[in-house]
């Protein structure tokens, strides 16, 4: 399955904020960075399962609210020296609409 699914309007996600999308593949966190890029990650920190959607977004990184592990939004990889990876989803914003691709 590789089509694009409509999520919401871009301005329904705060700058440096995120929203949670409930999907058949689990909760997906959609992030919007300060420079208006959007990213999608499985809403579970590889450390202890914290909801990444609730973290603080800075640059293209999110910091998990539970224990502060930093996860790169582009690749879902934990920032060194931490190790761990979160599944990522294809997300794009076009003409003010956010689109998601389920894997």
């Amino acid at each position, binding site marked *: 399955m590789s*089509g*694009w*699914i409509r*999520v919401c309007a871009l301005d329904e996600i705060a700058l440096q904020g995120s929203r949670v999308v*409930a999907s058949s593949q689990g909760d997906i966190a959609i992030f919007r960075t300060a420079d208006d890029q959007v990213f999608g990650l499985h809403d579970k920190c590889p450390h202890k399962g914290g909801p990444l959607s609730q973290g603080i977004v800075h*640059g293209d990184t999110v910091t998990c609210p539970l224990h502060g592990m930093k996860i790169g939004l582009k690749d879902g990889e934990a920032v060194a020296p931490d190790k761990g990876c979160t599944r990522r989803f294809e997300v794009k914003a076009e003409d003010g609409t956010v689109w998601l691709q389920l894997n």
Partner: protein
Amino acid sequence: MKKQKLVVVGNGMAGIRAVEELLKLAPDLYDITVFGAEPHPNYNRILLSPVLAGEMTINDIILNPLGWYADNGVRLHVGKTVTRIDRTARKVIASDGSEEEYDRLLLATGSTPFILPIPGRELPGVISYRDIKDTDEMIATAATHKHAVVIGGGLLGLEAANGLKLRGMDVTVVHLMPWLMERQLDKAAADMLKTSLEARGLKFLLEKQTEALIRGESGRVCALRFKDGLEIPADLVVMAAGIRPNTALAESARLYCNRGIVVNDTMQTYDPRIYAVGECVAHRGIAYGLVAPLFEQAKVCANHLANFGIARYTGSVTSTKLKVTGIDLFSAGNFMGGAGTDEIVLNDPSGGVYKKLVVKNDTLVGAVLYGDTADGAWYFQLVKDAQNIHEIRDHLMFGQNHVGDVGHAGKTLAATMPDDAQVCGCNGVCKGDIVKAIKSQGLFTLDDVRKHTKASSSCGSCTGLVEQILASTIGGAYTPADSRDKPVCGCTDHSHGVVRQTIRERHLISIPEAMRYMEWKTPSGCPSCRPALNYYLISTWPGEAKDDPQSRFINERAHANIQKDGTYSVVPRMWGGLTTPAELRAIADVADKYRVPTVKMTGGARVDLLGIKKEDLPKVWADLGAAGMVSGHAYGKSIRTVKTCVGAEHCRFGTQKSMAMGVKLERMLFGMWSPHKVKLAVSGCPRNCAEAGIKDIGVIGVDAGYELYVAGNGGIKTEVAEFLCKVKSDEEVMEYSGAFLQLYREEGFYLERTCHYVARVGLDHVKQIVVDDAAKRKELHERLLFALQDYEDPWQAAVAKPAVRREYEVIRIKEVAEVAP
């Protein structure tokens, strides 16, 4: 633009540290080429002693493996000594004839051992102790020969002697001075050290001057003769009689040298294109031989190489630790004392403990510790910060625990702890994990250790212990973090104090504006600096600066406490701890309706509803709001609760109406954001049932009015609140409490509790403003009231505003693909 060329002469700890710092600041500014005379990548020279002692291997002490150079685009020439600098053509020429041009040149040529000018110094078997080659030769000789003599009873000499002894040699240490390590120790400590080393089988000859080294039949050195005619056998002679800055290259290029290569506070030599760092340098007349100052120099130098131009090196206070396993010895600063100083001494020769603290004008200026060095890092911090110790002077000798500055830290001596002893209770990190990370990753700072091991990164109460482990593992390379001017985080070089001041003086009112003005290094900060900036802005410019929810931790953004499973807890406010049957019914109804799994009382004596889904929060709040309840802020760096006892309203002992007083205080402070959480308590009599002695503000009713206490804490480390003053009326309680809290709001650093704030600025400072100066007190109180006016309950705001409510809603999608636009 074409990259500039940076050439670094010297592949040691100072030169490479400068390169690392530079790469952090400006990774693409230079093409970097490094020349190293030794055939190795950069290694940790100070850990050669454990290698010699057989406790570590060469591989353990490599700091930057060859791959690091490749990964960072640094060209490395190993085994090439630079012999000449052509300053006109701006190039360096190496021993093999190869040349390299430079735009900037960094000299980090280190030092060379001082070789005594005595006959026989060139014989085989006579070496210095400086590098891997020397260490290898000592290890090899120990396997084949018997007698070793170490000339020099300083730090390096003793470590060499200890290592050779452990390798099975018969070792004599020869020293010119009347006691060992005279640069670091006074006689009393040195004598104890000598006794302890003698018990390990080392021999000492003090006040002996070596006249000649004698050649044996094999051509190798065989003996050593003193001025007084005495001869002792020697198959190996290690010269450890000091080091000299290696200035030969600089001098040949006619750069001004005096003891070392002379540099200014930006680490620049007399040729503006040429910088120098490390042991080869003379800065303000001092050449440092310890690694901690070199790192400070490297940082400053990198700042200027990166064209930032804002850092200055103003010299270092140094500390020393002997890396001989089982011997605890520490010295720092001016440990000999002298005119104008007082010495506080603890001397227990049989117990093997000696401590001397040198105090001048109520500041600690130096320390020598033998046998028990647990507080070394703390004393060093006090020396570095030049902190006034007047108030703790009588406890100073008994260490940090006695003063009560840390939690369960430092109970055990770091060096004697077993590897499997747990250090960090929050993250389950053992001593062995920390030591391993320090050694294998080449860590030097507390921050590094936190990043790699997580030790002391949660509640922080084991920080002292982690610092001790760091200090005992890396010895002299350890510098405690600068607690005064510590940068807020990696995004800036400015401290909390500077950031606060700048926001006030420059009238900055938004985070992007503040970051731009203070030249933040990251585009949008990090989870450490953004909440701090947000707090400083809204507390300095209430009504003008706009709160940025995205720069708040989730609890403050969602107005509830996140739990380990991602659900939230909700705590409705109960003014002064009072409630009504109607409120309790509404709470019970909410608990039923939303199937709240756990209902309990919080530590502040409020009802806690745990396990609520984020989506349900606005509905829960709407129901609570209908019954007249508002947010309890149990989640914020803000006013939490005012705990009260029953007081004169009912209690037969009560002298004041504590419940009414508590309600008034809690209503006055509703909506107050602060550097950290704030808790109050009001007791109606000195029996103090509300436990006011461990609150940020404790109010205790007495017959004639109230006693006010401040800066108590019942958290990580219990702190008893300090007496502020007595007041007569309820109005005065409000005014004094409000003024104290506003002062804390204006001067406190983000995440600094009142107890830490008051410890930093001193209770006298607080008293002068809040108690003695009625005009300032009133102004503070008014500013607090101004900041808190019109504060809207965040729960009802979230219920009412769709844009805010969206934060709580989950997006449900139709999983049907549309044609991509």
